């Protein structure tokens, strides 16, 4: 069932903060609106695992008191935000969408969350996700699937399923997700939102539960490019608690309203190996939206940009390389969940049985599958053939992308092979599920910044998306191109979510 469309009328994060700082809107009113919207949409979408109503209201009152005293709470003053439940918020549950951590509470707050709070944001809830961020549909949460607000019979994408849904359904203008292989960009694409994966090293991962450490990155989901720029300007910066966070100062404001009016003089590289015509595997998935991609290219041309085809030979190897590297790292990172220190514990008389039973009961099938693959690929006798080989292919890909980016301003590609697929359609077909990420894993493997921007609707009325990739730490250029494209597309459609009754109890 596809709800009717209506123009988006909800404030952006930037507009909300400006209104709160001016005194045209109180933080209490802002939070009340978000919580009201959440109550309307949540029964249908299941975007949230925890709603922090009391805490959000108290914090809003505190922000309003600060403003009445003449203080400036910061660039996100009074903005309601949602946080993916693999990011720590002190004293609150940190489940990672896993039954294993159903009652685990965070003893500290993640740096990325702390920076939002320091900028005046107000956390209204923790969002649903595929277990341990391993999934591309939002169906792999131990607490039940999230549904796409554009069509409740379809997936919202994953793994940041709840964050994308919360933004798309108008609960919050800004949510945090994490992106390892595309977990911010792909759900943003399926939900008609903007999703930014910052450069690996731009934003601290302190307090983000590790999945694949060489690729994990925290990123914002928003309704506009301007809000993504605002968010990353708040999130970016070195952190002594994350040695990989080497971030030079960010200057992303140009990504918003101050961005270029057009792209005259820009050269965009369309990755030849990722064109809809070139991608045809696995057979169960068709690249149905070649028309959408052609329209997106026309939009870029109408902005004055020159589009050249660039070749990245290892682009089609990115998906298997990603599967090997991410699974190997996951098998190591998740070894800590053995039933002793964290999460549920199977009561057995034997330590070995305790490990086996706790992990077997606690982890869902997708997590188990990836741990098995990673352990296999790291085993003596297989390591060279799989892990080392995948790392070698990855490094070659990184160099090919760097070479391509040395000849153009940014690279462009579809974000996903098509619009959101139906719930349950790929649950028993892991290859088709993994194929959803085939366009997003490139930036992940190479540590590049990439943003997903809505490009229109497909024949079923579902959002499509274009991905823009840039050089390391060149978020500014990526966001400027995205802002120009966003203006040209004029994507103002939103899913119509009025009250649960609208959907006739379809959940």
């Amino acid at each position: 069932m596809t709800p009717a469309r209506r123009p988006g009328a909800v404030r952006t994060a930037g507009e909300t903060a400006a209104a709160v700082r001016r005194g045209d809107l109180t933080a209490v009113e802002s939070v009340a609106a978000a919580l009201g919207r959440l109550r309307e949409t949540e029964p249908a979408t299941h975007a949230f695992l925890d709603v922090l109503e009391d805490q959000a209201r108290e914090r809003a009152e505190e922000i309003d008191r600060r403003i009445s005293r003449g203080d400036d709470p910061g660039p996100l003053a009074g903005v309601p935000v949602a946080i993916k439940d693999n990011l720590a918020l002190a004293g609150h549950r940190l489940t990672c969408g896993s039954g294993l951590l159903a009652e685990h509470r965070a003893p500290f707050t993640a740096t990325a969350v702390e920076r939002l709070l320091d900028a005046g944001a107000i956390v209204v809830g923790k969002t649903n996700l595929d277990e341990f961020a391993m999934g591309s549909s939002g169906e792999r949460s131990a607490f039940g699937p999230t549904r796409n607000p554009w069509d409740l019979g379809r997936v919202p994408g994953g793994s940041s399923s709840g964050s994308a849904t919360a933004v798309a359904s108008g609960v919050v203008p800004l949510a945090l997700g994490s992106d390892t292989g595309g977990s911010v960009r792909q759900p943003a694409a399926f939900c008609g939102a903007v999703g930014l994966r910052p450069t690996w090293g731009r934003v601290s991962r302190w307090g983000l539960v590790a999945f694949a450490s060489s690729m994990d990155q925290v990123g914002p989901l928003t309704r506009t490019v301007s809000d993504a720029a605002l968010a990353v300007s708040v999130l970016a910066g070195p952190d002594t608690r994350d040695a990989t966070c080497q971030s030079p100062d960010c200057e992303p404001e140009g990504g918003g309203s101050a961005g270029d009016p057009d792209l005259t003089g820009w050269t965009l590289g369309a990755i030849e190996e990722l064109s809809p015509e070139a991608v045809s595997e696995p057979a169960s998935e068709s690249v149905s939206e070649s028309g959408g991609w052609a329209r997106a290219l026309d939009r870029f041309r109408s902005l004055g940009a020159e589009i050249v085809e660039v070749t990245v030979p290892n682009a089609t190897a990115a998906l298997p390389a990603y599967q090997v590297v991410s699974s190997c790292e996951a098998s190591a990172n998740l070894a800590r969940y053995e039933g002793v220190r964290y999460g549920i514990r199977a009561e057995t008389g034997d330590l070995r049985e305790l490990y086996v039973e706790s992990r077997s009961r606690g982890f869902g099938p997708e997590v188990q599958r990836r741990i098995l693959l990673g352990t296999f690929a790291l085993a003596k006798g297989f390591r060279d053939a799989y892990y080392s080989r995948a790392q070698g292919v990855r490094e070659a890909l990184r160099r090919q992308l760097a070479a391509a980016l040395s000849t153009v301003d940014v690279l462009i590609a579809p974000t996903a092979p098509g619009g959101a697929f139906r719930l349950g359609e790929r649950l028993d077909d892991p290859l088709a599920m993994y194929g959803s990420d085939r366009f997003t894993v490139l930036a992940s493997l190479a540590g590049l910044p990439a943003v997903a921007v809505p490009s229109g609707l497909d024949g079923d009325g579902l959002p499509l998306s274009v991905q823009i990739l840039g050089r390391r730490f060149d978020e500014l250029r990526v966001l400027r191109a995205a802002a120009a494209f966003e203006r040209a597309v004029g994507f103002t459609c939103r899913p119509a979510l009025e009250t649960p009754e609208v959907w006739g109890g379809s959940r």
Partner: protein
Amino acid sequence: MASQMEEIVALVDRLEGFDAVEIESGTAVAEREAAEREADEPGWTGASDVPAPCLPREQVLGEAAESRQGFFVVPRVLPPEAE
């Protein structure tokens, strides 16, 4: 799950046909600064970091205010309910 694993292994077997670069273990996409500092490094006022053999455990524990069973005893950091 066994048949699905076979399909996944077949997918990753495709890596064989692509260019690969030999890299050292621990290589990352980001260039990282060396952890060791030099005495003449701007902003660093200490001595140069020099790798040296590890101190004997007994000597290190002897410097601690309190030790037990081969470990330092430190004040509780987290409240009991946070554990």
